[in-house]
């Protein structure tokens, strides 16, 4: 035996003093976790700070109210792009929310069969499709048959972007509703559809709203799917069958333009886009939180 002789008795554990090594590990791990948490916040903080620094000066009333000036003139605003982005996201959500929530509900309630597996895989694959490819698909589906670029085509492309997030998150949220709620409803004589409508959906609603917001927020910032669907426009238009301006496309165009004034406006547009998404999310979350509190 190479090991030293084993002592017959051990000193009592209480007498072994402070475990210095354990404390070091404890402190080290705590610090590491805090650093990791800070590292998560850092990118967003940097983005916000940078956008505010570069874009705040350009946020004049004119930026929100005026149309872009012709090339070569300074000034002007992006009223058409702000309205355009709002319209495109609304079209996308109008298409993707009913289908996405419906499909998510189907997956959670009946999704164990073959069709469920197919839908789930399709949604996952769709979520992995590069956004430029989504743009091409919307181009061939809408732009080619219509014969021109349009807000509708852009909305369809954004709808494709939102759909997978909404489907899979809705499924997760509905599955999280405790089985006991379902049993309680059924035991009171609720038909299945009433159970889903009266108990499951309200219980899952805050989560579903978050899912929709995640999908919409992502779509609001997409540029690639809009390049050959909504195209862009320098004029005021809310017509569904005409090309339409949007903030991401403006940022894309203005940021690489050789004019300082346009670059400055690109920064401001980016800041507006960020504020828009944040504002809408906050608004929806506040209202969603209030709904279940409703007194009888």
């Amino acid at each position: 035996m190479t090991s030293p002789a084993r002592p017959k008795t051990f000193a009592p554990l209480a007498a072994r003093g402070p475990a210095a090594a354990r404390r070091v590990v404890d402190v080290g791990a705590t610090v590491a976790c805090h650093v990791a948490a800070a590292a998560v916040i850092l990118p967003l903080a940097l983005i916000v700070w940078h956008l505010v620094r570069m874009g705040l000066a350009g946020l004049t009333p004119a930026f929100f109210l005026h149309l872009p000036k012709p090339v070569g003139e300074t000034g002007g605003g992006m009223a058409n792009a702000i309205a355009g982005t709002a319209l495109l996201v609304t079209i996308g959500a109008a298409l993707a929310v009913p289908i996405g929530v419906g499909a998510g509900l189907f997956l959670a309630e009946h999704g164990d069969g073959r069709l469920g597996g197919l839908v789930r895989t399709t949604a996952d694959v769709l979520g992995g499709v590069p956004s430029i490819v989504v743009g091409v698909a919307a181009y061939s589906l809408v732009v080619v048959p219509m014969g021109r670029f349009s807000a509708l085509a852009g909305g369809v492309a954004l709808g494709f972007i939102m759909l997978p997030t909404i489907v899979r998150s809705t499924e997760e949220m509905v599955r999280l509703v405790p089985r006991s709620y379902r049993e309680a409803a059924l035991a009171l004589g609720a038909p299945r559809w009433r159970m889903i409508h009266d108990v499951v959906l309200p219980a899952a609603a805050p989560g579903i709203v978050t899912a929709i917001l995640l999908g919409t927020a992502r779509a609001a910032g997409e540029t690639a799917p809009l390049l050959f669907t909504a195209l862009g426009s320098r004029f005021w238009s809310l017509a569904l069958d005409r090309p339409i301006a949007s903030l991401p496309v403006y940022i894309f165009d203005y940021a690489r333009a050789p004019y300082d004034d346009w670059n400055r406006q690109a920064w401001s547009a980016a800041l507006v886009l960020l504020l828009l998404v944040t504002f809408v999310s906050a608004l929806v979350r506040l209202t969603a939180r209030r709904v279940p509190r409703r007194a009888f």
Partner: protein
Amino acid sequence: MTVELPAERPAGPAPRVGPAATVPAPAVERAATMRGDHIAAPVRLATVGFDLFYGTLHAVRDVTLEIASNSVTAIIGPSGCGKSTLLRAFNRMNDLIAGVRTRGEVRVSGRNILEPTTDVVELRRRVGMVFQRPNPFPKSIFDNVVFGLRLLGIRNRGELEARCEDSLRRAALWDEVRDRLDRSALQLSGGQQQRLCIARCLAVEPEVILMDEPASALDPTATARVEELVLELKQRYTIVVVTHNMQQAARISDRTAFLLSGSLVEYGETAGIFTSPREKLTEDYITGRFG
């Protein structure tokens, strides 16, 4: 309306579903026992040669018993003996589990509810259920109590409010919640939540209340309140309680059924079961020798 039970399994229609495996049925000497010592009151619930399978697992084996109306019947037995499954047969909650097959009969007020023509929604209104863990909906107290009423299409505010108060009073909860009916039910204590669930169940005017270990998630004070409530409620309802707490069964039930490995070992007056059980297995179980 007394249901006359045949002494043997009915020889009539073949088993509705399930394998044709014959279940050993020592029915002759048991038949008398399983009638609960000559029930005088009308029989509300009954099973006749009832078997239930989860896939290949034979969870309830050839159970025949009669349950009198306006009484409390306790089903006791060790974990996994099939007592909850048997309870859930009376409102067909087992339908929710995939791969469940049954044979034999389960009768509610004389009708075999395993018939495919049974209106399960109506059955579950008549045969209410209270679960092991209090499961109020994440809605207001009021919305919880009137949930079943709204399912029945009652929209009239005044009627809903009157029935809500009535149910809460019967569940001995009204005085505690009367001035906060619009608050979330999830803010109530566990014992209050369970009484709320009982009120919610009473609101739809059931004939039978099935309780699946209704007090096992509650502290002793709340348990005592629920037990008192059960004793009050039996004036109007037929109550079946599954419990693994033998003292509780002794305190609240009129009759006790002892289930082991899916088979009904003994069924009779609670006093008799606990003082002079006829079966050795029952005696071993209630004296704590196993289970």
